[in-house]
């Protein structure tokens, strides 16, 4: 199998690392070689963060580079735009329809781009979801990242049961049920 390239991008503190743990779990359970690469340290404090996931028969490089991502999962609109050029021509861009102003916008040094989804839609195959709204419907805004995983799962090779099983193994026991519900909300959206 040709190596698959997934990227998860977002804002430090949004919980992208949990997503990569769940992805890593499902890939390993399927028996592929896998490498994940993530950002720790200073960028985790509200900066732009990126996680790379690669899997296949044999994986060398731990990062995904420009023009190579099969799936790009963005937790925030501006971050989707920042990394969109990492997508392959036929790659899928999954965007959580949420705006978080970076400090450069808050201080007035820069402007948050207008109509990001429209711009991205012209150049890429875009699937968007308001994951925060879906999570709030379930009564727990914190599981919005699992909703996003559900959306991403539809565009990947693994079965729903496999996802639910790896979620059960990865999240804290008390939160298994709500996370599985959140996954389904994304998967069926």
């Amino acid at each position, binding site marked *: 199998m040709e190596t698959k390239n997934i990227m998860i991008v977002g804002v430090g503190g949004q919980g992208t690392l949990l997503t990569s743990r769940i992805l890593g779990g499902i890939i390993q359970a399927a028996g592929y070689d896998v490498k*994940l*690469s993530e950002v720790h340290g200073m960028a985790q*404090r509200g900066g732009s963060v990126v996680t790379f996931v690669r899997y296949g028969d044999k994986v*060398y490089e*731990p990062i995904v580079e420009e023009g190579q991502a099969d799936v790009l999962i963005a937790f925030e609109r501006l971050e989707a735009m920042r990394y*969109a050029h990492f997508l392959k021509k036929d790659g899928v861009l999954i965007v959580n329809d949420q705006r978080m102003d970076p400090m*450069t*916008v808050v201080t007035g040094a*820069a402007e948050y781009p207008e109509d990001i989804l429209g711009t991205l839609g012209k150049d890429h195959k875009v699937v968007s979801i308001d994951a925060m709204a879906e999570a709030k419907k379930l009564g727990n805004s914190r599981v919005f990242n699992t909703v996003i995983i559900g959306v991403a799962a539809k565009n990947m090779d693994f079965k729903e049961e496999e996802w639910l099983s790896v979620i059960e193994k990865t999240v804290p026991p008390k939160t298994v049920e709500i996370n599985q519900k959140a996954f389904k909300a994304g998967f069926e959206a």
Partner: protein
Amino acid sequence: MAKQKIMLGNEAIARGAYEAGVKVSAAYPGTPSTEISENIVQYEEIYAEWSPNEKVAAEVAVGASMSGARAMASMKHVGLNVASDPLYTASYIGANGGLVFVVADDPGLYSSQNEQDTRCVARAALVPVLEPSDSQEAKDFMKEAFAISEEYDTPVILRTTTRLAHSQGPVTLEERVVPEDKPYERNPAKNVMMPGMAKKRHIHVEQRMNRLEEEGAGFSINKAEYNDTSIGFITSGIPYQYVKEVCPEASVLKLGMVHPLPKKLIQEFASKVDQLYIFEELEPVIEEQVKSWGIACTGKELFTRQGEYSANLLRERVLGEKIEGEAYENLPARPPILCPGCPHRSTFSVLNRLKLHAAGDIGCYTLGAVAPLNVIDTTLCMGSSISSLHGMEMAKGKEYIKNWVAVIGDSTFMHTGVNSLMNMVYNQGTGTVIIMDNSTTGMTGHQDHAATGKTLKGQEVPAISIYHLCKAIGVKNVVEVDAFDITAMEKAIKEEVAKDEVSVIIACAPCALLKSQKFPNKCVADSDKCKKCGMCLKPGCPALTRNEDGTISIDDTMCNGCGLCRQLCKFDAIRLEER
């Protein structure tokens, strides 16, 4: 079948230490090395500690090695500078029980103040360096490092980089094998480094490095992969993965030991390939040596000394491919920021209002250098805020620093800041030092230290009182202020800066991300009372945004009710509500 697990590079290093029978591990946290110690904690068989700094950690490891046990110290690249005093002489003393320093470089500067190359330090200190290229090797090379350390009577550096440390990959687990401790025998000729002894040990060091250079050619961690011989690469670590990704047909000499270089193996490889590339991140350490042996090769002519490498770099520079995909232009940058409810923001907002300059230090609070806080003027290295402020005073006089303070975190103060404070007192400075005590090592992800009252292993211990420590050093003016009480903070800063004596203000409030922190309240904006003045926005809390009509919204998932914005509002338009 052997058990396999996906492991972070740092987790694999910890596992390697466990399997190698390590008994003592010491470290000071520093990205990207921190998770090594955090993972070693799970192994009850290993004594593991946070030391106050890397010098102490290295010395703890040396002592344990002298006693006959396998021991290690881990640190980031700049931490090795702090530990370089013990390193250079531990090189002479060598090892009794195996001695390994794990040192993590940060090409690309993800979380560091410089981009130095540990291999340069190792060459100067005459210490061998191993460099793994994935999580599996990270584990395996730890065991190799201990074996080499004991066989060649030397400390060994295991060099990693951020990409290796923070990448995950499958690792095959093996059992822990604890070698019998080496007997301890009093041996001043080896363990007491006075001139007479050190002269003789220097001979050993030279012989050892020569032997390693010779015998390294036969080490299984140095391997030549011969394929198409029209192109050959000499590489190591993560860059090896880029070579395999882009040029799977090329011949590759993968070096597991990057110092000393296995000269014969390199000469042989070079003789068999037509075009030889040296692909190494940061400094041309391999390249310059290979060129000095009269071997033609290409390295930094094509590949930069800056930042992290990538497969695309090879595609462009070696294969001449154009990289597809154009980035959208002029997007707003998203630099890291202080968290909502961060006590540093509160202290900085006061300094900003008073138009004071701050000599800064290493920690989350270094972010006080950028907009909108713009308080920190200087940052050099761990502990330097206090000493550099002192230097300014000695150059320009005490009046010059009346609009200056030094700011330093609790962990950084315990690391080396305390030495600088001793100096300021001893040499009759008059500076004002703000110790931003958030009860943890924040930036690296919340590690304990000597003033938190808890060890790496989670044991409750008496906390060193920063207040009494400052008093004991001889600081007469030591005041503790709640970091979130901006009125009290302003008063304290004005008073202490005016004094012609050293002052310490301890700005107390725990890091908002500490698990023990509970937030019963949140701030809520009242748009009817809001006069749209923007005072509350000044400190740059990410929970606050301006609405289109100029009033304020506060994101209740982010806000933890620290109340800084509320204190800044002159119109009572922000109230505190229970969650």
